[in-house]
């Protein structure tokens, strides 16, 4: 799905063609009533159309009113088109998902004691709690929890990742998703979703925008826009009264033009497209949010709880330095490290070999003849016996128990220094002689520090969560540049930390996968569950990351912020546009009565008719011109609020004041060149 989704261009022909049809369908006033500004515009367009028809019927000049009516309809159409395009992009994804939801025949287990005896049942008839049997090659019929078995599952229908993943009963990898396919073995699954409520169903609904409800910010903005519209209803409805006093006749078309230009049609037309596109951006990013509200909350987050392993560090400790014991040559220690690590296939062992190869130029390609001594939990050392010499490496105290006498003076200090730095020391010995130590370091991902700095500039605190002891945790935290650490963390600690932070009025985001993460995921304002996680975790969170990449939390926050910024930027732009419209239309409608008001025609528009028409055309075109911005979102920069505000206010505030002056003048010049209404 990822690959398909990412290639949807902003101007995909099929989507645009479909959107054009939908735009007309969306003119239905019943559905349009959800959008007060555009609904009002439609009513006005209808009014002017009737007026034009009436004038034409009476044989009076109706050309101007007709043209205004046409452009008002175009304004409405552009607004519905914007929404249709945004929905269309989601629909392409939904269709891809739907392909996975073919109605399969499930193998319903009748008697739990005999899971291999089943009754063929339509997948759509499965209920919560039913047991089904799935074999290699089968599509998993519904969401469920594995009760028995271990198998590899191809989840590409959901995640786009074709490499199969292991799913097994018990533990944190026991959830399976309907529509994914078993590649090997068999499973017995307890169904956890009723028909129509599976993860796939919900995802399709979200992607299509069918389940879209207005978010709190959208509702507030809607109220503001409706209020502004009402203010202008009053301003324009009273204008004929002033006109009557001033002996100025104001036609319906002229009043309608002024009204529609003043009400915030730009943001009114793009508002829902912005919301849909925000969800879409998240989905393109392979994260599914259960509500638009969650996406908004992501923008508001003040603190990120990040697991150390896998998010901040690579997860595996890697050898980073050798420390020979006093009196031992460094090359001797390197050779010992090499020999003792042959046969150690753990990531740590491989990293030691890589270190001695890269730093000491030793050959690690072939293992000499000898006996591999594997690591065991009891000995806590591993090594290699060659030509009667025992090369060993392992936990410091275990190695010290092997050697003769106390370690050389200074060795203990070395070990302490390594531990204080947050690394793990390993001791190396030859027979009963201590040779030195290897430092295994938790490697912080490159670039993560810069990202945390960026988050800090945005006012977001990063909190590292780790099971490590305090010393180790503090060292990693310092290296990664996080703001706070929860060391030796239990799930309860996480939950308590979230509660405490929320009590200070901050919003917290976290990600998790295990069942014991579920309470914290539910408590967090933004809880991102990993797709590989348990069903409990996936239900507790309000987002699911299909790639199961905890680092994404940072991008999710950025997408949330981008959504809010786009909405604010276009609102500001829309409202700032009004100034120019007054200068275009007011002199045009009053100049016949008060010729001196021509002085207000600062744009030097050709005639009153062309001035009014230019303003109306600009007002319509700006909607469609801003559709790409609404869909793509305003570019987000990780800087502080002050800098962000300055930049956006300059572009969308000041730009919103200036742009229409230029645009209206340009349209007027085109109209003049075409000899229309001049």
């Amino acid at each position, binding site marked *: 799905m990822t690959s398909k989704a990412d290639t949807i261009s902003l101007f995909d022909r099929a989507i645009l063609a479909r959107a054009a049809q939908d735009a007309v369908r969306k003119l239905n006033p019943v559905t349009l009533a959800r959008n007060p500004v555009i609904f009002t515009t439609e009513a006005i367009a209808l009014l002017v159309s009737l007026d034009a028809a009436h004038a034409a019927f009476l044989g009076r000049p109706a050309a101007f009113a007709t043209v205004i009516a046409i452009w008002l309809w175009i304004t409405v159409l552009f607004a519905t088109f914007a929404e249709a395009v945004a929905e269309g992009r989601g629909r392409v994804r939904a269709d891809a998902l739907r392909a996975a939801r073919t109605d399969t025949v499930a193998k319903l287990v009748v008697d739990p004691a005999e899971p291999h005896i089943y009754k063929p049942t339509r997948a759509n008839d499965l209920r919560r709690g039913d047991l089904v049997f799935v074999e290699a090659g089968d599509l998993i019929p519904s969401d469920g929890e594995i009760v028995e078995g271990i198998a590899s599952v191809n989840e590409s229908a959901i995640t786009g990742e074709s490499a199969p993943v292991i799913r097994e009963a018990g533990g944190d990898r026991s959830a399976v998703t309907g529509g994914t396919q078993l590649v090997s073995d068999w499973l017995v699954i307890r169904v956890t979703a009723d028909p129509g409520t599976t993860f796939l169903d919900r995802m399709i609904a979200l992607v299509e925008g069918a389940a879209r409800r207005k978010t*709190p*910010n959208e509702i*507030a*903005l809607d*109220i*503001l826009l*409706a*209020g*502004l519209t009402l*203010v*202008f209803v*009053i*301003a*324009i409805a*009273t*204008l004929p*009264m*002033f*006109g*009557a*006093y*001033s002996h*100025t006749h104001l036609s319906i078309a002229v009043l309608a033009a002024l009204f529609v230009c003043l009400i915030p049609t730009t943001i009114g037309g793009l508002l829902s497209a912005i919301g849909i596109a925000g969800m879409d951006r998240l989905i393109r990013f392979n994260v599914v949010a259960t509500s638009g509200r969650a996406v908004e909350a992501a923008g*508001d987050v*003040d603190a990120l709880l990040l697991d150390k392993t896998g998010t901040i560090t690579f997860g595996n400790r890697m050898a980073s330095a050798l420390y020979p014991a006093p009196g031992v040559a460094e090359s001797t220690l390197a050779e010992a490290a090499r020999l003792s690590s042959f046969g150690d296939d753990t990531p740590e062992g491989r990293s030691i070999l890589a270190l001695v190869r890269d730093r000491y130029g030793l050959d690690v390609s072939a293992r000499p003849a000898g006996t591999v001594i594997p690591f065991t939990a009891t000995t806590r050392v591993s090594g290699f016996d060659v030509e009667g010499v025992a090369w060993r490496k392992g936990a410091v105290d275990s190695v010290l128990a092997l050697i003769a006498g106390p370690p050389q003076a200074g060795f203990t200090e070395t070990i302490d220094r390594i531990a204080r730095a947050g690394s793990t020391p390993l001791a190396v010995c030859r027979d009963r002689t201590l040779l030195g130590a290897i430092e295994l370091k938790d490697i912080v991902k490159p670039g993560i520090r810069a990202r945390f700095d960026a988050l800090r500039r*945005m*006012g*977001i*605190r990063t909190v590292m969560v780790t099971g490590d002891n305090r010393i180790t945790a503090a060292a990693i935290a310092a290296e990664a540049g996080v703001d706070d650490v929860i060391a030796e963390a239990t799930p309860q600690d996480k939950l308590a930390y979230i509660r405490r932070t929320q009590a*200070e*009025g901050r919003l917290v985001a976290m990600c998790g996968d295990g069942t014991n993460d579920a309470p914290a995921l539910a408590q967090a304002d933004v809880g991102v569950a990993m797709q590989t996680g348990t069903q409990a975790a996936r239900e507790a969170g309000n987002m699911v990351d299909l790639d199961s990449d905890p680092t994404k939390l940072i991008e999710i926050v950025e997408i*949330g912020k981008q959504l*809010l*910024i786009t*909405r*604010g930027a276009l*609102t*500001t732009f829309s*409202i700032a546009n*009004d*100034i120019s419209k*007054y200068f275009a239309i*007011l002199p045009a409608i*009053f100049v016949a009565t*008060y*010729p*001196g*008001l021509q002085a*207000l025609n600062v744009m030097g528009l050709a005639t009153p008719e062309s001035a009014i028409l230019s303003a109306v055309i600009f007002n319509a075109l700006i909607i469609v011109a801003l559709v790409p911005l609404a869909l793509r979102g305003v570019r*987000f920069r990780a800087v*502080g*609020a*002050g800098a*962000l*505000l*300055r930049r*956006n*206010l300059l572009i*969308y*505030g000041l730009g919103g004041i200036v742009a229409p002056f230029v645009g209206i003048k340009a349209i007027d010049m085109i109209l003049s060149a075409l000899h229309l209404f001049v």
Partner: protein
Amino acid sequence: MTLAGTLYIALVLALVLGTAFPLGAWLARVFDGRARLLAPVERGIYALCGIDPDRQMGWRGYALALLALGLIHFLLLYAILRLQYWLPFNPEHIPGMPPGLAFNTAASFTTNTNWQAYTPESQISDGAQMFGLAVHMFISAAAGIAAAAALMRAFAAGRVAGLGNVYVDIVRVTLYFLLPVSVIAAALLLAGGVPMTMAGFAHVHTLAGGTQTIARGPVALQEAIKELGTNGGGFFNANSAHPFENPNAWTNLLEIWLILVTGFALPIAFGHMIGRKRDGVALFAAMAVILGVALFASYAAEAANNPILVHAGVAAAPGNMVGKEVRFGIVQSTSFNVAATATSCGAVNSFLDSYTPLGGLVSLFLMQLGEVAPGGVGSGFYGMILFTLLAVFVAGLMVGRTPEYLGKRIESHEVKLTVLAVLIQTAFILLGTGGALLTKSGLGSLAAAGPHGLTEMLYGWTSATENNGSAFAGLAANTPLLNYGLGIAMLAGRFAVMIPVLAIGGSLAAKPILPRSAGSFPTDGLLFVSLLIGVVVIMGGLQFMPADTLGPLAEHTLMQSGKLF
């Protein structure tokens, strides 16, 4: 424009803005209850009135109390005005007011408007002046400040239900601020030549041998609170143009200071109350910039003079002196009138009807903006907070967070109430003016034809709705249509704004204060001040552009082409 004129405006701004800081700090102490000089007096008043000063009131409590206070005072004043003939302190035996005029006057003084459809010298007794009008000037001013204080407390604390105690606020504001400042100012005005007497009119024999009646009365005290409480109701019809209200340049400057200083002190007090002084200064700065621009604009328009007079060679040297007192000249007149229309004061020392169209437009537009620069006592502050909420809501999203102001989230409830307040003001001004212009009675009230007449009517409704009270003198306002219509506009402009504001306060008080971070919307810098000014102009003023174009702007262009009304 002259250098002296420019320097005068600079002096006015420096005086007002400079003194607003200490006064704001003092007001914060008054609101917080830390000012305790008159504690025994306070306790006596609370005991006498049965007020429990420790009882916290929610926004509903405040709203109900202020409404009830308004209603009681409205009825009381209505009764006084109707019955003044039989009441004491009526040396000139002035008869009772007719119902329509009494309704209008009672509404006017209850709402801190002080629109005067009556002629004070001949239609109101000394007793009604002092016990009816002057009392209201204190009470309505204190009520406005109390509402502002309640709103301030909503921001000052997180998750609280109470906004304070409205009775305590009114008592303390009166005791610690309005009364002492008024008494000092009255003394200064007395020293400047303003009379304060209960001896009735003076009947004198002129040098020419005739007799003359000189109206006088207890002017000084009423004059002080008229300005300080941004009331504006003059003892005389000529208001502050009358030599007994405003004898000379010094009293003029003092009166300008009195009009403006509270409006500027309140945002400073707010900064103290919330512990974020810079945020208070930001509101203060936005007010100061708008006022400064208006002061210069009005001065420039009047100094530029009327081109027709200039062309005819009969123009006065300093500029348009028509309707202005010679003892004040251009800049002292425009400064006074701008101060009075930038606030809800509405006092005048020169006649706006005779201003150039653009000079009149400055005052009209200041009122249409909702009188927020600095605005009426209390009402200017909360009006500015409404615009601040709009600014934060519109632009706040642009930093990528749910909008918040001072750590309080701005959500649909606040937006709804803010929009409601703006809507009500717009509706009364435009529907009122438009409606009146359609009636015969309305047209009959106009002194001039054409756009000037339209301006007169527009100005009247704007002045009433915004609780200003100044008039474009030409309008004959004592008609049933305007007495009742404008009276209702005044009540709506006062209470239909104050109550949503208190409701916003109630809703915000209950919200937690979110901690500030680098991601919080900055509300204390130059950037925010510019944004706020932009929002005030675009969302508060632009809806009046069509009407203003047909009024003062059209008249201006006609004047340029040699036509007068």
